[in-house]
C-alpha cells in the first residue's frame, strides 16, 4: 500500500525545461568588486552600494547556521555566479513588443501569459528572470489607483526615499547569514507600495524563474501597505531541471501600517532534484512582516519544490490588536528536505496569531515544522493558536515538529497542538470500493488533509495550487 501511495505522489517536474536565451553572466566568484558591478549594472545610487558593502562585510564575519534539520554539502560561495540576465534585457525594453519572444514563451509555458489581453483580468504580474525583471504588467491601471508595483531595481532609482526608509527595516542586514548575503548581492525582485486607505484593485504577483546554470538567485521583495490599505500578493517560483544544486536566497519584507492588511501567498515549486537527490534548488529564505496597530499579515505557503528548504515567514505583531497568520502546506518526497515554519512575536496588546501547518512526507524525505511563538511582557491579552499536523507516507521518511513557545505575559494564552497520522488502509479501501483508482484516492485524501490551508489561498491561486498538488500526486501505479 505504502509503495502505491508513494508512486501516486511521484511526478514529472513540468517546469524543468531550459529556455534558449543568450545571457550576460558574471564569472563565478564573490568579493566587493562583484557587488560594485551588480550595483553598477542596476545604476544604483551611492547609498545603495554602501548599504550592500556594509552588509557584505557583516556577512564575512558571520557563520552559516546549522540548527535546521537539513543536511547538504558545504556551499562554495565562490563557485556561484551572482548575476545573469538575458542580453536582450540590456537596453530596457519599453514595451512588451520589445521583449525577447523566447522570454515571453518561457512564461507562457509556465502558464503565465504576460500579454495583458490573455491574462487573468484581476492579476498584475512582475516576471523576474534570473537577475532581472522582464516585465511588469498592468502598471498603468495600478498607477491610476496610486499603487506602485515595479521591479525593486527601478524603485531604488525612482522612489529612493521609500526604499531608504523601509529596506532592512523588518529584516536587519545582519539578521542571519543568508539575509546578509542577500543584502549584499540581491539583483531584482518586486516593490509594492499601497497608499493610505487604498484597496489594491487587483491581485499582485511575481513569478521568479531561474534559468541560467551555476547562478544563484537573490531576489528581494518589499511591500509597504500604508494606513488602512489592503493588498493581496502572490509569488510563484520554478527552475530548470539540472544535476547541480543552485542557491536561492531571498529576503521578503512586509510593512503593514495601522489598519492595513497584507495577504502574501506563495506557491514554491523550485526544482526539487531527482529521486536520488541529485540537483535541485537550495531555498534559504527570510520572510518577515511587521504589523502596526490593528494591522494584519497573513502568510500562506504551498511548498512542494526545492531540494532543501529553510524558510520561516514571520510576523512581528508590534501594534495593539494586530493579527498574524501562517498557513502552510509542505510536501516532501524523494530526498527533499524541508525545515519550515514561522515566528510570531507578540509585542502589542491583544495581538492574535494563528498557525496551521500541514506537513506531508513521503519517499526518503524529511519534513520539519519549526516555529516560535513569543509573548513579550507588553502583550496583554494576546492569543496564539497553533496546529501542526504531519502525514507520513512510508517508513523511510521523517516528520518532525520543533515548536518554541516563550511566554512572558500572564494574561497571554497559547495553545499548541501537534499530531501525526498516515493515509490509512481503511481510507484507501473505502475510496477504491467506491470506484476511485489509488492515485485519485491518495490525491483526494491528501487534499482533504490540506484543506484548511488551501481555503486561505486567493481564488486565482487556489486553482494553481490544486493543479500543482494534482500534478504532484499524479503518476503511474504498478
Amino acid at each position: 500500500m505504502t509503495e502505491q501511495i508513494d508512486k501516486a505522489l511521484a511526478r514529472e517536474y513540468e517546469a524543468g525545461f531550459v529556455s534558449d536565451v543568450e545571457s550576460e553572466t558574471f564569472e563565478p566568484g564573490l568579493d566587493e568588486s562583484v557587488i560594485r558591478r551588480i550595483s553598477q549594472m542596476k545604476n544604483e545610487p551611492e547609498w545603495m552600494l554602501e548599504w550592500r558593502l556594509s552588509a557584505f562585510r557583516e556577512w564575512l564575519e558571520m557563520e552559516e547556521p546549522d540548527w535546521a534539520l537539513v543536511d547538504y554539502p558545504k556551499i562554495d560561495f565562490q563557485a556561484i555566479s551572482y548575476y545573469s540576465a538575458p542580453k536582450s534585457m540590456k537596453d530596457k525594453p519599453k514595451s512588451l513588443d520589445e521583449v525577447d519572444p523566447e522570454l515571453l514563451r518561457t512564461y507562457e509555458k509556465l502558464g503565465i501569459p504576460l500579454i495583458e489581453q490573455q491574462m487573468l483580468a484581476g492579476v498584475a504580474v512582475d516576471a523576474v528572470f534570473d537577475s532581472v525583471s522582464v516585465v511588469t504588467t498592468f502598471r498603468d491601471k495600478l498607477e491610476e489607483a496610486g499603487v506602485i508595483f515595479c521591479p525593486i531595481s527601478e524603485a531604488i532609482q525612482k522612489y529612493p526615499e521609500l526604499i531608504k526608509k523601509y529596506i532592512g527595516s523588518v529584516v536587519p542586514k545582519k539578521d542571519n547569514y543568508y539575509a546578509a548575503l542577500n543584502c549584499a548581492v540581491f539583483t531584482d525582485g518586486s516593490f509594492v507600495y499601497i497608499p493610505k486607505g487604498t484597496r489594491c484593485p487587483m491581485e499582485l504577483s511575481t513569478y521568479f524563474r531561474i534559468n541560467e546554470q551555476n547562478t544563484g538567485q537573490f531576489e528581494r521583495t518589499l511591500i509597504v501597505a500604508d494606513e488602512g490599505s489592503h493588498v493581496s500578493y502572490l509569488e510563484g517560483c520554478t527552475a530548470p531541471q539540472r544535476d547541480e544544486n543552485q542557491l536561492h536566497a531571498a529576503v521578503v519584507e512586509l510593512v503593514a501600517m495601522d489598519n492595513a492588511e497584507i495577504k502574501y501567498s506563495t506557491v514554491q515549486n523550485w526544482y526539487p532534484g531527482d529521486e536520488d537527490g541529485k540537483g535541485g534548488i537550495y531555498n534559504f529564505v527570510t520572510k518577515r512582516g511587521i504589523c502596526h496597530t490593528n494591522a494584519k499579515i497573513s502568510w500562506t505557503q504551498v511548498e512542494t519544490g526545492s531540494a532543501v528548504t529553510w524558510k520561516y515567514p514571520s510576523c512581528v505583531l508590534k501594534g495593539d490588536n494586530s493579527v498574524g497568520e501562517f498557513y502552510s502546506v509542505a510536501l516532501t518526497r524523494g530526498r527533499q528536505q524541508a525545515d519550515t515554519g514561522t515566528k510570531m512575536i507578540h509585542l502589542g496588546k491583544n495581538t492574535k496569531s494563528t498557525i496551521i501547518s500541514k506537513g506531508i512526507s513521503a519517499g526518503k524525505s524529511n519534513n520539519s515544522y519549526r516555529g516560535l511563538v513569543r509573548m513579550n511582557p507588553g502583550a496583554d491579552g494576546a492569543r496564539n493558536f497553533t496546529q501542526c499536523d504531519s502525514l507520513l507516507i512510508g517508513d523511510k521518511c521523517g516528520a518532525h515538529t520543533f515548536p518554541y513557545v516563550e511566554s512572558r505575559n500572564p494574561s497571554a494564552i497559547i495553545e499548541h497542538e501537534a499530531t501525526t497520522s498516515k493515509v490509512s488502509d481503511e481510507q484507501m479501501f473505502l475510496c477504491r470500493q467506491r470506484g476511485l483508482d489509488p492515485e485519485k484516492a491518495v490525491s483526494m485524501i491528501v487534499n482533504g488533509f490540506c484543506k484548511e490551508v488551501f481555503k486561505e489561498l486567493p481564488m486565482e491561486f487556489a486553482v494553481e495550487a490544486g493543479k500543482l498538488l494534482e500534478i504532484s500526486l499524479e503518476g503511474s501505479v504498478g
Partner: protein
Amino acid sequence: MSNTETLLSIKELHASVEEKQIIKGLNLEIKPGEVHAIMGPNGAGKSTMGYVLSGRDGYNVESGSVILDGEDLLEMETEDRARAGLFLAFQYPVEIPGVSNLEFLKASVDAQREARGEDAITSADFLKEAKAACKQVNLPVSFLKRGVNEGFSGGEKKRNELMQMLLLKPKLCILDETDSGLDIDALQVVAEGVNSQRSADRSFIVVTHYQRLLDYIKPDFVHVLSEGKIVKSGDASLAHELEAQGYAWLQTAPAEDELEG
C-alpha cells in the same frame, strides 16, 4: 444485463486473513433482483465475505471462483470491482477528514461513469441528485459539505453509506451489518432506502446478526453462515427460526456434516 440467469456465482471459495482461513468452501448463487440474507454467529466470516468479494488488501483468496455478471471478479482490482457494479456498505465507515462528501461522491460517480464509457454528469445535475438522495435517507443537505463521515454519529454514517448506494446505482449491494447500532427509526429509514432500490436488475446481500432487519427488508432467501461456509439455506421463515433458537444448535452442525460425509 448480459446474463439474466445468474448475477453472482460463488463456487467453493476459500479465503484467509493473516494466514488464518476464515472462508472455507463458500457456495452461493444470486439471480438479478434477489435479496439474500446472510446470518450467523459472530466470527462466522460474514464481514470477511464482503471484504473478500470487494478485494480488500490482506484478504487472500486461496481457491474457488467468483463470477459477477459473467466477469471473473477475483482477477480485478478493488476499484474495478466497484466499477463492475459491486457496492459494499460498511459496518464501520471510516472518516476522511477534509474531503467533503459531495467531492467524494462526485469523484466516485465520475470514475464509475468513465469506466463504463458514459459521459460525465454535470455538477449541477449531480448536486440535484445528491440532494434528492440526502432527502431520501433523511440526512440534512448540509451533510454533503461535511467531511466524509467526519464527526457523524453511528446512524448518520449508516445513512451516508445508503446515500452513496443510491447515487452509485450498483448491481450488487452488500450491506454489512447495516442494522448494527441503529435505533428502530433509523432502521426503518435504512430499510425504506433499500426497498426503494429493489428492482429486477439489482440484487442485495444483507449481512446481519439479527432477524429484526429482515422484518423490514424481506429476503427471498436466508442463509446461515458458520465457520466459513453456508450450513443451512431457506426462505424468510428460517430467519424467524434462528431468532427463536439462536445459533447454539450450529455448534453441533459440523459434527453432523462429518457423519454424513
